């Protein structure tokens, strides 16, 4: 399934950047690990009413960090972002509406 693309098409994109150095990636991984630790701490530390928002925000931050940096989406052609975020936004929208019809978000 690999395509026989010529060098010009892909090398242009590569020269753009492999912006992050290995050290940079390790830094990102450290941040992700720290956020994970913080997430787990919510089980042991009482966050009060902040519990759910904090957890969800941390989840979203980790998600976006992996997508933007590890998956390189931030530095790549915007078409890839469009493709992926279209699916993501659609999924969140449709399934949130679906759960809403079951009164999932009403206490």
């Amino acid at each position, binding site marked *: *399934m*690999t*395509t*026989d693309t010529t060098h010009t098409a892909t090398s242009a994109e590569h020269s753009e950047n492999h912006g992050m150095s290995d050290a940079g990636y390790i830094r990102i991984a450290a941040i992700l690990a720290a956020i994970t630790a913080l997430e787990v701490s919510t089980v042991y530390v009482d966050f009060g009413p902040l519990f759910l928002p904090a957890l969800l925000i941390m989840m979203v931050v980790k998600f976006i960090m992996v997508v933007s940096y590890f998956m390189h989406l931030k530095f790549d052609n915007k*078409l890839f972002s469009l493709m992926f975020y*279209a*699916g993501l936004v*659609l*999924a969140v*929208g*449709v399934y949130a*509406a*679906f759960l*809403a*019809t*079951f*009164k999932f978000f009403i206490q």
Partner: protein
Amino acid sequence: MAIIEREIEVMAPMVATPTSTYGVLKRPVAATGWRAWVFTVDHKKLGLMYGVTAMFFFIVGGVEALLIRLQLAAPNGKVLNADLYNQMFTMHATTMVFLFVMPMAAGFANYFIPLQIGARDVAFPRMNALGFWMFLFGGIFINLSWFIGGAADGGWFMYAPNSGPVFSPTHGIDFWAFGLQITGIASLTGAINLIVTVLNMRAPGMTLMKMPIFTWMMTVVQFLLLFAVPVITVALFLLSFQRNFGARFFDVAAGADPLLWQHLFWIFGHPEVYILVLPSFGIVSEVLPVFSRKPLFGYPFVVFSGAAIGFVGWGVWAHHMFASGLGPVSVAVFSLTTMAIAVPTGVKIINWILTMWGGKLVFSTAMKFSIGLIVLFTVGGLSGVTHSVAPSDTQQTDTYYIVAHFHYVLFGGGVLGIFSGLYYWWPKMFGKMLNERLGNWNFWLMVIGMNLTFGPMHILGLQGQPRRMYQFTEARSGEGLFNFAFWNLVASIGSFVLAVGILLFLINVVITARNPTKSPLDPWNSRSLEWMTSNPPKEHNFDVIPTVHHLDEFFHRKYEEDPATHTMRQIATAEEIMAEQERNADAHIHMPSPSYWPIVLAFGLPVITFGMIFSHLIAVFGAVIVFFAAFGWALEPSTAPASDFETNNSAPSTELDTVGKS
């Protein structure tokens, strides 16, 4: 100098001795015979294979429909018992939706998208072949159930818990669910393939807003497929797990909510109906301008309304569930969104009518079918608008009024568009034109038959005939002349008129095949790029990839505006344009090579699903086939290296398909 060495009709067999093996198989090389079809990765051959297979399933689904109509032709029908009737309407709908309309659209898309954008094939040719074989094997798998214990019987929408093992103990639904998973993967891979092709492989100069409108509509369809197929995949897995592995998803005693199935199914199901109709909208948008001698009116509006339909179509699904107990808030929201989606469709209808307005109309068969679509789809759309009003839908739902609606939009819309495309593009695909006189009979019998069949169903629905009712008694029939019995009889007669119309199409195909008369190069004086090729196109499509400067590029190569009179004057004939292409042909063209792996991998899938139903050992064996094929595929380059073919004295080159001398 570059001269076309090979005639299209006569493909001199290439002597080839592949040197590399992948797995245990050397790659196939035959250019003629059955192997040229079974191992092909050529989008045109695959398109034809999709079309032929889809037409076969159209007949199957049609026979299923005729049996239903025979059963309902009179009170106390004895043609089908209740159980068989359930299987019949389930399989009729499943076959028509998944095994006829969708693959037929895939066939047109496969054949014409690369040609319309000036490409030589799609982005992933082997995956394209995989898609076709998965569709074929999936379709066969679903229908195996007829012979092994009975077909699926829960309706094409398969509501839970009726679909569970308690109420439907035969294997029919398992064949249905697993078979649709296979065809679903076919749709998904096809969608990825075409999206990448359209975004990445357009000819130089062809911006998105210079793309032919059929390609635009099909691209919207591919995005719909890309995002909708996973949803039904989830639903089918939940169903299969419930039926085969004891999951409790739809088990009310465990606290399950049967609406889970309905939501998941219709979140897929509503985009699905746009998947079914947008291809026909695309075809009609191509046909009308050609036979009105005018460009498509409001091309940007047609494009954006297509995208809008694709987008808004995700927000309306629960209008299929108005009577399910959703509650007033949900019902109101979905009622409003459903009304909204009528707008972009209305925009298209207006643009089509304005395309014809003031044009010099040519009433070819293709044109008649397209005009038929405008009229009959609008009828279906109007009944659809009445459904969007939730209170009135509460009366209409689950009655024949709904059956009338969706047959007007699916048959009047989807099917008529398909037939328009067949008559329009037949000369391009086969080098011959379908007989127009027979086409006229074909058209009128289909239209009359269709209206006789589905028109009365509006009345029947309002008279109270429910869906999925296998039989009605004299008493149930009601009083007076125009009762159930009367209108059902009219509908049944209509269905046979319709069947004769379709038979005429098949006869037309046979007669045309036997007729030696070739079609002219540009029989309809067309506008878009696929017509700037021979009939049928050469294997490599274009001798030289065209540079595109206009929307309707082919038209603008034939005509330009006379600055003095401001009318269009001809500057070149199609023949002259083709000759110039040949003079400037590329010397060396590498086409993707045929491969075994798509059909082998595809074959593994029904083996897995058969095993899931009957024997897990067989399933493992199927998985091994898939695994082995995946490896062979990954290791095989998409184009065979030159070393795979030895030089033949008479052939000027070593590539499987080369134009001209090096």
